[in-house]
């Protein structure tokens, strides 16, 4: 195998400079800070609503994943055919996530509808953990 050549990867070349690395670092840091800020605002004011917030989190998470894969793992700079052998199978996740969350939600709806005991369980409140000795707050 060693006789088959790859170009550029095994000798020093200039394209790997450190500037985009730090740019990616700042992007990841800023996105994480935005997520934490939004979470903190939500805790204090209940704005934005949890559903909107979860949507924002998922978009920001995908953005972070893109920057890690594209820049840190350098995938963006590989040959297109190779990128596709990674990206196309990863698309299975779209079906994977949708199908299983949908299934979970449907199972819950069915149980709430036909299983009285299951539905009632959620109405039983537990005592505040704060009242137990040795627990925080």
């Amino acid at each position, binding site marked *: 195998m060693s006789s*088959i050549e*790859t*170009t*550029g*990867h*095994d*000798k*020093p*070349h200039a394209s*790997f*400079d*450190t500037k985009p*690395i*730090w740019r990616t*670092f700042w992007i990841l840091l800023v996105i994480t800070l935005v997520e*934490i800020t939004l*979470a*903190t605002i939500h*805790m204090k004011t209940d704005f934005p609503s949890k559903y909107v917030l*979860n949507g924002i*989190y*998922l978009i920001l*998470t995908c953005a*972070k*994943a893109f920057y*890690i*894969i594209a820049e*840190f*793992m*350098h*995938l*963006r*700079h*590989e*040959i297109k*055919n*190779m*990128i596709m*052998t*990674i990206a196309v*199978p*990863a698309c299975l996740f779209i079906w*994977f996530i949708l199908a*299983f*969350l949908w*299934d*979970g*939600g449907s*199972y*819950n709806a069915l*149980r709430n509808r036909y299983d009285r005991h299951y*539905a009632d*369980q*959620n*109405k039983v409140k*537990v005592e505040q*953990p704060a009242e137990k000795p040795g*627990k*925080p*707050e």
Partner: protein
Amino acid sequence: MAQAVPAGQKWWSGGKSPFNVEYGKLMMWYFLMSDSFTFGAFLISYGSIRFATNGWPNPNEVFKAFPFFGETNLPLVFVSLMTFILIMSSVTMVLAVAAGHNGDQKKVTLYMILTIIGGLAFLSCQAWEWTHLYHEGAWWGRNPFPNADMSKASTNFTNFFFTITGFHGFHVFSGVIINVIMLIMNLRGTFAKKGHYLMIEKAGLYWHFVDLVWVFVFTCFYLL
């Protein structure tokens, strides 16, 4: 965008690597893809169970402690620190790879040491968090935290938390071991003799993958 390729380059006529990637590195990519499906299966089963449950504990009520701050209510602060540590160690890892490209053995050593320190710091944080939660009464099969609406929560919450962060922590641990081996090989001049630092790149891919998984674990357990 994609790597610059001379026009009319015949990649598939033999004598060349069609993806222009060394064999081991390509296989590392495919291993990581299969590993992402393992983690994906874990996280999606967590999501599926969460959708199939009426109530769920509020993460801000559960993960609110910080070392040496006792009972102070500090949601998200500790996990933000852990995220920062892991991103930072990813940066030093890329810097090690970049130094390897330039054939700078000393810099590779420096950045590998920093990456290993970052990995150990992350593992220490996780050990502290697990210990803290254990003392609060949380473990596999035991969940002291009520749902956000104060109804009784199922143990699925703690089961998934410890299983998935544990599996991720194990990946970080093995990543640190791999990085230590890379550091020793570099100190012995193995890569300098070979004339390339591709092994550092492969270890780097694994290390970034660990960071990538943490991004999703962070969102799924601490934000959503």
